[in-house]
């Protein structure tokens, strides 16, 4: 399987993660303490990529932390990568991570090239041009319409990678797959090379969006992983093999493809990942499978 370089590899000296540990939280430490830890870190000026982890263990919004960082915004002016909400399932349900309006914080990071956000409750990234941004990834159990509206109303002329986790209605997805169609536009994203719309119940429909888009010819990677991709979706790719033969990689990891279909897809003249195939359990999966991140 093709491994992307991890922009937020914590072993890199220029990457630094700040969070409240469970212990600290139990001791009564708050977002102000987390802010103090960050601002007071002598190494902060050398940090290029910032990871912000758990700020609260009771599903509180991160607004206080954002406000504090914005008040000291000159300290973050040179940040090139931001992973906001690096919180795992042991710390919080993804769909219960309470975000905030990150727009003022993003405004204070003019050199930001990589933005990754986990959790979309109460999230806003603003609606404005962000010419420095090259990679945007939003992980969610259910992407809400407000976040999609922000992306569509913003301008990312230099974006090379866009990866969005669609999710399910129970965890906050309140739209339809068709509402994502404007993203599949070469005019909107002239430099996009990696497009992923993943973790969707209607993953087969996502394949259709790719195949009928004008952005497909410029892409190198099609990411349709982590969703309910079935043989019907796989067949669409086989039927339109000419349209996808220029791709370098198609990620379909975590899927509902049969072994026969996986073999056929492996025969495409493109590097593909068809690992982690799921079985539909008739007893439990009344909806015919579910995406990877639905908590």
């Amino acid at each position, binding site marked *: 399987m093709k491994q992307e370089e991890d922009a937020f590899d914590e072993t890199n000296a220029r990457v630094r993660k700040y*969070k409240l540990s*469970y*212990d600290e939280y139990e001791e009564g430490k708050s977002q102000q303490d987390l802010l103090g830890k960050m601002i007071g870190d002598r190494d902060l000026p050398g940090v290029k990529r910032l990871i912000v982890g758990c700020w609260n263990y009771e599903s509180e919004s991160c607004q206080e932390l954002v406000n504090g960082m914005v008040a000291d915004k000159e300290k973050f002016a040179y940040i090139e990568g931001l992973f906001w909400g690096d919180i795992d399932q042991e710390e*919080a349900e993804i769909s*219960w991570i309470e975000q905030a309006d990150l727009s003022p914080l993003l405004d204070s990071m003019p050199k930001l090239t990589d933005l990754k956000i986990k959790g979309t409750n109460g999230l806003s990234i603003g609606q404005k041009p962000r010419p420095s941004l090259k990679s945007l990834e939003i992980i969610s159990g259910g992407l809400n319409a407000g976040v999609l509206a922000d992306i569509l109303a913003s301008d990312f002329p230099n974006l090379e990678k866009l990866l969005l986790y669609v999710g399910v209605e129970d965890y906050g997805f309140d739209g339809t797959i068709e509402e994502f169609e404007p993203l599949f536009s070469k005019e909107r994203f002239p430099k996009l090379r990696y497009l992923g719309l993943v973790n969707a119940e209607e993953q087969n429909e996502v394949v259709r969006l790719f195949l009928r888009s004008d952005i497909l010819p410029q892409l190198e990677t099609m990411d349709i992983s982590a969703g309910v991709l079935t043989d019907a979706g796989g067949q669409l790719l086989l039927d339109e093999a000419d349209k996808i033969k220029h791709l370098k990689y198609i990620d379909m990891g975590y899927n509902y493809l049969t072994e026969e279909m996986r073999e056929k897809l492996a025969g495409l003249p493109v590097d593909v990942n068809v690992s982690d195939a799921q079985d539909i359990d008739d007893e439990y999966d009344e909806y015919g499978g579910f995406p990877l991140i639905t*908590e």
Partner: protein
Amino acid sequence: MVSNEPSQRTAYFIKAGEYAGVNVRFITYRELEQRLPAYRNMLIKLEPPLYHQAGWKACHALCMEYIEWLRRIARLESDPTARFLNRPEAIVHALDKAESKRRLAGLRTTPLLSPAVEGFHSLVGLLSEQHCSAAFIKPRFGSGAAGILALRYHKKKGRFAACTTLAQNGALAYNTRRINRLTDTRQIAGLVNTVAETGALAERWIPKDSLCGETYDLRVVCQFDRIACLAVRCSKGAITNLHLNNKALPPACLRLPAGVMDEIKDLCIRATRLSALQYAGIDVLIEKDAKRPYIIEVNGQGDHIRRDLYDGNTIYKNQLMQAL
């Protein structure tokens, strides 16, 4: 070796006997009870019964029946020279999580929120009061993942989410062999009430350390004051028991500081002693960030590690050699 029917455990223990030059025989509980004096000079290992019931209340009833049977054996055989590998009363104490916690006082165990959950309503009050947004609700009696609920509470929104092996079909709560995720408050309340009826305790949910993107805990087999085996149990969710198709990794994958490993070993040896057991399977969690070990549970019959069976059967072989 005593159980209600032969199993993989009995087969491998018999093989270990062949290795050690000892004749190991399988007998049923009934046979042991009827002829206990005749077995007085033999070494007796009490294995858990195999349950074929899925209904929660039926499972609980079988567990209580088994505990009662162990108590009866303990009363029948009060001669301290009787050679049980683990004495029945010590197994009973380990099967009672409230009693087991009491015996382990002084060791770092997962923090108790309540030793006796009355029901969903009072549990919510307790979580609110304690500013606790995540807890494990565990049946007081028994071992393993059956009946456990990993519960999260979003106080502001009044929402709940739970992961559990339990499922509900009409009025019947039953165990499944998969982890179900529930978000319907009525459904969660129903299951909490069902488990609470049979006796349940609540513990704080300490965030577990992760490895290769999955959370893990440890099953440490300790026997005769030594660590016999350490298995790393990985899971994508909150419940790590291996029979639920979760993944086992060798201990070499752990990158814990030597001091933490020493602490784990020390905790497990002391927990086994305090539980008056000669061998035990001890579940240990490592707290995220702090890398601090906590004892989750002591299982007086938890020496069954499938990987070890195929990899030399060393636990059973050493157990027999040392016991003899």
